[in-house]
């Protein structure tokens, strides 16, 4: 698990809500700080990769899949870069 400065729970949220909520949360971070996002939408893996490719202020540190009570959680660590 990577270290992080803020966490965002978007379990149950459908695309594109995890992205929109993450973009808003990222705005509250200082440059260099890390946001942990916990999602249940499997598509969030590709969605966050796409965000990091096209946005100018986000990079992915890591993405992990964690099983929690029979449910897969997709955990993303994102750094604000600008």
């Amino acid at each position, binding site marked *: 698990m990577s270290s992080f400065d803020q966490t965002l729970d978007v379990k149950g*949220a*459908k*695309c*594109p*809500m995890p*992205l*929109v909520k*993450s*973009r*808003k949360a990222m705005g509250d971070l200082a440059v260099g700080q890390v946001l942990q996002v916990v999602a249940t939408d499997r*598509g969030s893996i*590709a*969605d966050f990769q*796409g*965000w990091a*490719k*096209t*946005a100018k202020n986000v990079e992915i540190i890591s993405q992990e899949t964690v099983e929690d009570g029979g449910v897969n959680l997709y955990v993303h660590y994102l750094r604000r870069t600008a």
Partner: protein
Amino acid sequence: MTTHELPCTTLQHQTEAAQLRSYAVTPDVLLATQPQPEDWELLAAQGYRTVLNLRGDAARAAEQRAAAEAAGLRYIYRPWPAYALEPDHVAELAQIVADPETGRLVFHCRSATRVGLMWMLYRQHHQGWTTERAEAELRAAGYDDDSLETFDFCASDFFERL
């Protein structure tokens, strides 16, 4: 392209006729999940003329363009950023919808949620529909409460940033 208001039952029948999970918001516009390889010819046979892909993967889009065009469909790839949609993206969608070359349109992403949001923004921002009217259209096409909640949240974010 002309769109028509039809009774919900007619639109629902049209939605069920497709082999993929889809939502016919008008007789000429089908919002859909990712079509599978066997769907392109079926969509063409049902009279759809243009496919508009909102997904981000350019390599996959190139493969799907070849398959869709082989089935006789026009293919448009627009990976608009779902995390920060802007009025220019809605205007571009409006141009595609209005283009006589478009004909009947299949507008898809992965789960049909982003395209539902884009359609709601098109109705509200481009055509001046109220939130209630735009939501009613999407609900009549088959979108559930979870989807409508997502559309509400993301549309509010869009309008807050104008």
